[in-house]
């Protein structure tokens, strides 16, 4: 394995030739929940990363906090970041590269995404900007993005944060079945409620309990009861 160190300030234009004296950016690992990622990210934007390519391999000499001491190398990757709508914060300037580090080679951002079907896909990315680059809010322990099976029209009049929160509470936009939606319900619901506030959130969650799936009903009612001491019925 050829290891090299790439200067952060020399990444653009990137050249890996003669890279012995160069350095990588900080590898950032933070265990964040979805709500924590929303809170931590300076910007959440709708878009995608394309033209993904490996950037280099970094040898880990000092293990950062939280990180397994077994990890000796991480793999830096980059891609073209194209965003068209800001949900939180502002859009990064056009043409910025998205750079992240992974503990495994392959630069496969969408490795754990469910199989594609005919539905449209929208991804909301939790990002921060470092110089000329866009980076995930954390390289490890968090969420790079959330996927919605829905269109996101950039010109919509709806407040983007409310729209994002509503999508988190829309079963068809998150999953293929109500049962699957119930499994990860609390993570999305708590983030949506953080954005929408208690009153609107409760209004949106109550109907979910009535959709007919017992697991979703249990998840929704438990959430309302524990978090807000509210019942499923008005």
């Amino acid at each position, binding site marked *: 394995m050829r290891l090299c160190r790439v200067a952060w300030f020399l990444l653009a234009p990137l050249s890996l030739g003669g890279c012995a004296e160069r350095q990588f950016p900080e590898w950032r*690992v*933070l*265990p*964040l*929940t*979805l*709500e*924590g*990622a929303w*809170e*931590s990210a300076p910007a959440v934007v709708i878009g995608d990363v394309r033209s993904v390519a490996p950037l280099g391999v970094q040898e880990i000499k000092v293990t950062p*906090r*939280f*990180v*397994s*001491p*077994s*990890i000796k190398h991480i793999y830096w990757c980059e891609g073209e970041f194209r965003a068209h709508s800001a949900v939180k914060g502002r859009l990064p300037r056009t043409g910025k590269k998205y750079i992240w580090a*992974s*503990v*495994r080679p392959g630069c496969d951002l969408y490795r*754990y*995404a*469910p199989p594609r079907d005919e539905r449209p896909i929208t991804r909301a990315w939790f990002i921060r900007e470092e110089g000329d680059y866009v980076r995930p809010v954390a*390289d*490890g*322990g*968090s*969420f790079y993005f*959330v*996927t919605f099976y829905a269109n996101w029209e950039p010109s919509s009049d709806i407040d983007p944060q409310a729209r994002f929160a509503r999508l988190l509470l829309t079963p068809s936009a*998150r999953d293929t079945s109500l049962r699957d939606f119930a*499994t*990860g319900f*609390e*993570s*999305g619901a*708590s983030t949506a409620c*953080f954005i929408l506030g208690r009153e609107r959130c409760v209004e949106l969650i109550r109907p979910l309990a009535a959709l007919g799936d017992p697991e979703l009903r249990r998840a929704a009612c438990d959430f309302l009861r*524990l*978090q807000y*001491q509210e019942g499923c019925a008005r």
Partner: protein
Amino acid sequence: MGIERVGANLCYTGRMIKSNNNWVVTDRLGSVVRSGAETLRYFPWGEERLTSTQNRDKFGTYFRDSTGLDYALNRYYSSSHGRFLTPDPYVASASLTNPQSWNRYPYVENDPVNKLDPPGLAWIWANFDSLMAPDGSVVWSPPAAGYMIWPATIYGPEGTPVGVGSSVSPLPPIDSDGADRRRIAAALRVVSDCYWGDGSQYTVGYTRVITYQVLDQDGKPFYGSEVPAVTESVVTTSGPTIVGGGVWSRAENTIDPSGRFTDYLSANGNAQPSTATQTLSADGNALRVNIGAGSPTVLNNTYSTSTVTVNGTTSPRPCTDKDPR
């Protein structure tokens, strides 16, 4: 200031911790709210909500005698009347600028929720950090700001245990009805539990990912600034060392605004299995974890290349792209 014997009582840093051979817990007014297994509750002026044995220390640092009167060193206080039975003998406690102080019988200028008067001479403020005299001078400071004494092992100056004694935990605030209302982190609820078979973005091999939510003693979550930091302690009991000991805090958003945080558990590629105990604490209390049997405060975990068990449980499902990595 260490452990002192005051009459039949044992005190630690100025606070009573043992009375009539029972370990006691006092609130910020010095009232005994727990004595052995017994809980005592008071109305604001010191009347007991439920009758209990007399002739012992009860309200506001006072000894309550068999007639129900409180002995305040220099005079008697009647909790049923909310006033002293004799005038204040301490001349300096009267102030020309404070008409309340001209009446020499009232208890703590009629503010029994925020003030106390141990000697029966002059009231002092009871706040979360210290006891202060009216002039602002600190009369007593707890070992750490906003903390009270709880039974535990006491160590002498040489570091040797001198008996079961006290540890510190947050002081309970007192509502207008005199009841303790302090919310203390007490338990962890499992929000989600899944596993990555091939490691997360910072662990190697099988990794169990558990998201917890911190709950108070009544089972209610914390929100925003009241969410406490959670500290992890991991002690490897066999096999290769399991790395742990993290802190999740609001300062870096590793605990979210609703008190949820994510723990990653992995053997990190070690071929040999390990066992370890894991304790998660907040506010100085080991938290009960609602996972497996018994809601223990100390989790017995096993780590291998193919699974991680926590208090005898295995993860119920693989993680998906909707789980943190």
